[in-house]
């Protein structure tokens, strides 16, 4: 009698205040059957990783529209490493220029979803990546 659910943390690191995208993703993933923990705006990488560990999530989704995606994501990756939590799947969404996608993936980001991505794409990617 196992009722496993995929748990996803949706967080916005840094200082941009554009929350709409993160919310749409959060609602959409809920409707796809995931348990979504939404932590809101202006979270530091430390706060994000600490929340992810307490909530024992399978996935962290970062929404970044400030242009600082490279440095913010690197900080989250570093935090995850220092907490030995690299097993958590990291995905990034927002305004990400095409040429930065490769750099993000090199850092260890599993999936990058730029503006215009459908929620179903994100949900599908998570379902496939997280073995249930």
């Amino acid at each position: 009698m196992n009722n496993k659910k995929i748990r996803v943390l949706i967080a916005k690191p840094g200082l941009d205040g554009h929350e709409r995208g993160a919310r749409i993703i959060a609602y959409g993933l809920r409707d796809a059957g995931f348990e979504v923990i939404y932590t809101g705006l202006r979270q530091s990488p430390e706060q994000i990783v600490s929340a992810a560990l307490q909530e024992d999530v399978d996935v962290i989704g970062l929404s970044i529209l400030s242009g600082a995606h490279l440095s913010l994501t690197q900080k989250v990756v570093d935090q995850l490493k220092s907490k030995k939590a690299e097993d958590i799947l990291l995905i990034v969404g927002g305004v990400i220029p095409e040429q930065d996608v490769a750099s993000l993936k090199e850092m260890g980001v599993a999936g990058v979803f730029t503006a215009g991505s459908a929620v179903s794409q994100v949900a599908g990617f998570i379902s496939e990546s997280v073995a249930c």
Partner: protein
Amino acid sequence: MQASWETLLDGVKKGNERSLARIITLVENRENGWKDAMKRLYPLGGKAKIIGVTGSPGAGKSTLTNSIARELVSRGRTVGIIAVDPSSPFSGGALLGDRLRMRDAVNLPEIFIRSMATRGALGGLCQGARDVSRILDAFGKDVILIETVGVGQDEVEVVKTADLVMVVCVPGQGDGIQALKAGIMEIADLYVVNKADREGAHEVAADIGGMLDIASEGSGPRPPILKTSAINYQGVRELVDVLVHGFDAGKNRADWRALRIKEEILSLMESEILHYLQDKWDRTGDLDKAIHQILKQQTDPYSAADSLLPLMREAFGIKETT
């Protein structure tokens, strides 16, 4: 893959937060071995005080929980928070957003926050929350706050597992007591009128007082009613004073404790039996057959339940009685 239960239990004993978080997940998911793990954790706990926080949506429960936790930490206590939100009955998913309002609690290392979805499991949520609070207790948290929306039977059951139940009201929601009709009134040890900086707070407090006077005539002192403005930390110190005092006065609830244990054993049995039978019926297809027949108006749910009884007797080796 997953670290073994043994390693995780060891981690919990040593105060490792990641082990704690993982063990909560495994128990919540009812992974094989969860009950054995709970058996091992049970004797480690029993020291924590458990506070249930409930009230209508938007009453400020998360903000209040945050301020209470902050105040408790400043008094040298460690705190666990279980924030329960409903699962969607359609998708099974949930949006858990209580951390948003816990701006201090998320930054204090003495506080561990866990968001929990109701998951709509048969008799599940109540036991699930009870399990999580027990794990936090075994981990060594001094106070555990269980926060849940005060609508629906499940949520009421959840707060009933607490040592102390706090009902949060706010001005501007009808006569303020509308939300409390569904059996919550009887289980509250304490009322908080939050957002007390707003107009009408005094009236809400007076309303509740009046209602309690009618309800509790002759049955001892009525529960206290406090006013807070959680977002400004106003009234929170006084509230925590009352809570801490309530911990010590909790002795008079020994009969309650016995009742709760009884309920817990029964609910564990219930879900065990239900899962067992459901599994069996799923495999034989008898349950599906019965549903189909009812849909085609060939039989009714009562007859179907009766016709499934022999299977159950067989399963448990019970001889047919009258």
